[in-house]
């Protein structure tokens, strides 16, 4: 592999890793930090992509569609937490598995009923549709650079909020001992609703951002779900930094694998995770 191609692939890997982080970011929050096992996370990603596709067609503007979709996702998150998740906090984790698998069924059915089963695509917003020259015969699309920057922004904001702010401490404390947090005068119920909803919104936003780069198809949610879990687990539960590093590693490794050992490229992230867990059974950045 020439040095130039190596560099190109490194850029590809980082960009893919950043997108992975964005998709996994909501999961890190809901699962890693709050400790709720939400298997329907992929469905939220799917919902985001479908919403932005739908509203982009209706409004004709990607930006308007993106904003609208994000707000709807936030509302959906609040609704789900209030109606369903909230009832399971003092129950076994496995009940959360069951509930959220039920939710996957429902979301898949709704997607098929509301939007049909055709594959869809969203075109890149005009303002970001150019590309910059990259190598001799390829160029790099501006939108993907823009998406990467958004991912970095969200990663930084999330890291700051969770590990440096009082809000972040409250969320983490809630995962450890809900009763005690409430006994310190915090409305943990609302706090959790909001944080869960933000997690859902992050998943939807990643769907929105990814929509112009990927295809919008039924079942798209499930296919990213496991990768997200791998990212979070490699990084170590509850660590935003870990998820970020995990996502970049997974992105870069699978990018190089796709070119160097294509037949193994699906397996490689599992092999990588197993190796990581054998060396550090609690992930890279666990305390």
């Amino acid at each position, binding site marked *: 592999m020439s040095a130039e191609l190596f560099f190109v692939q490194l850029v590809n890997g980082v960009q893919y890793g950043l997108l992975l982080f964005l998709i996994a970011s909501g999961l890190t929050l809901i699962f890693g930090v709050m400790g709720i096992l939400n298997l329907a996370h992929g469905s939220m990603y799917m919902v985001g992509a479908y919403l932005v596709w739908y509203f982009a067609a209706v409004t004709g503007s990607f930006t308007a569609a993106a904003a609208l979709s994000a707000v709807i996702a936030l509302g959906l998150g609040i609704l789900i937490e209030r109606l369903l998740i909230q009832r399971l906090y003092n129950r076994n984790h*496995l009940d959360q598995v069951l509930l959220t698998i039920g939710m996957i069924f429902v979301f898949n059915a709704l997607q098929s009923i509301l939007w049909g089963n055709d594959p869809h695509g969203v075109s890149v917003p005009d303002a970001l549709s150019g590309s910059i020259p990259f190598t001799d015969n390829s160029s790099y699309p501006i939108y993907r650079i823009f998406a990467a920057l958004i991912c970095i922004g969200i990663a930084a904001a999330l890291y700051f909020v969770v590990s440096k702010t009082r809000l972040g401490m409250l969320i983490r404390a809630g995962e450890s001992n809900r009763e005690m947090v409430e006994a310190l005068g915090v409305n943990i119920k609302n706090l959790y609703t909001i944080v869960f909803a933000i997690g859902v919104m992050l998943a939807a936003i990643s769907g929105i951002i990814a929509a112009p780069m990927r295809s919008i198809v039924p079942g798209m949610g499930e296919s990213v779900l496991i990768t997200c879990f791998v990212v979070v687990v490699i990084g170590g539960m509850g660590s935003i930094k870990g998820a970020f590093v995990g996502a970049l590693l997974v992105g870069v490794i699978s990018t190089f694998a796709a070119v160097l050992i294509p037949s193994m490229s699906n397996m490689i992230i599992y092999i990588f995770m197993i190796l990581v867990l054998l060396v550090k059974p609690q992930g890279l950045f666990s305390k």
Partner: protein
Amino acid sequence: MIFEKRTERIFLATFFVIALCIPLFLESNSFFVGKATTVLILAIFVMSLDFLVGRVGLVTLGHALFYGLGGYLFVILTPEYEAVNFWIYAIYIMCVSAFVALVVGVVVLRTSGIYFIMITLAISQMAYYFFFDSLHFGGGDGLFIFIKPDTSIFGLSFLNLDNPTHFYYLALLGVLITLLTIKIVLRSRFGRIVEASRLNPARTEALGYNIFSFKLISYVIGSTLAAYAGLLFALQYGYVNPQFMTWEMSGTALVMSILGGIGTIYGAILGTITYEGLQYFFEHMSENWMLFMGGSIILMVLLLRKGLTGYLEKLLEK
């Protein structure tokens, strides 16, 4: 008494009586006998998972690895186009699976909790890709098993596996054996320590037990039973496919066992029947069966605190 709870005894008695009679009513319809057989085979698989998740405390999303392996091992180990003895090969396959489980177990049991879930998932996905990508084993399309093994013991043959009713009883026997095996193991002195290491691993270690070996043995037992279920399933339709190994398969089994009431073992049977029954019903009712299926799963989680058996116990236990 192996079956401690009244509800458990009532349920199992009812179940086995009905299950024994079912073919008498359905003889004419080989589809329903086949469907009932599939449900029984799944119940074996789900029971073995319930044992690991609910009783040993090993929440795995990679259990389907052994389910698929049971079928593939049959294809791999039997000579082509030659009728082999079912019992001998069942034992042979279970031994090989047990060995695989031992090796896998030594690796995965180094982690715990969510990390254990993920590492088991990873290993089963790897096996899935291995079989999916290897043309030799039929790739993504899977492989056919052309010959049904014969089931004679010392020259006496009671079962003809080509006969759906006979196969049904073989599966029912499997359910009984699995149930008894798990129950006996749980009641044993070994089972006491297994229970202890689930309830409080740190304390069990501090009492002088190497809980790793207890978990490992349990993992091997559960996995071997799953392989047996997988073998039966592969033989029923004469077909193996890598899809049997995916995490969705493990996930569905997990749903069935939680639905039945995790850790109750007999609940796994009830959960499997309910899940399969609902799916059959909704599928024939509407194209949007997923909506109803998902809706009823959600309702059941919200309404039943301890699964279906928890509800039954509330009714039947004084």
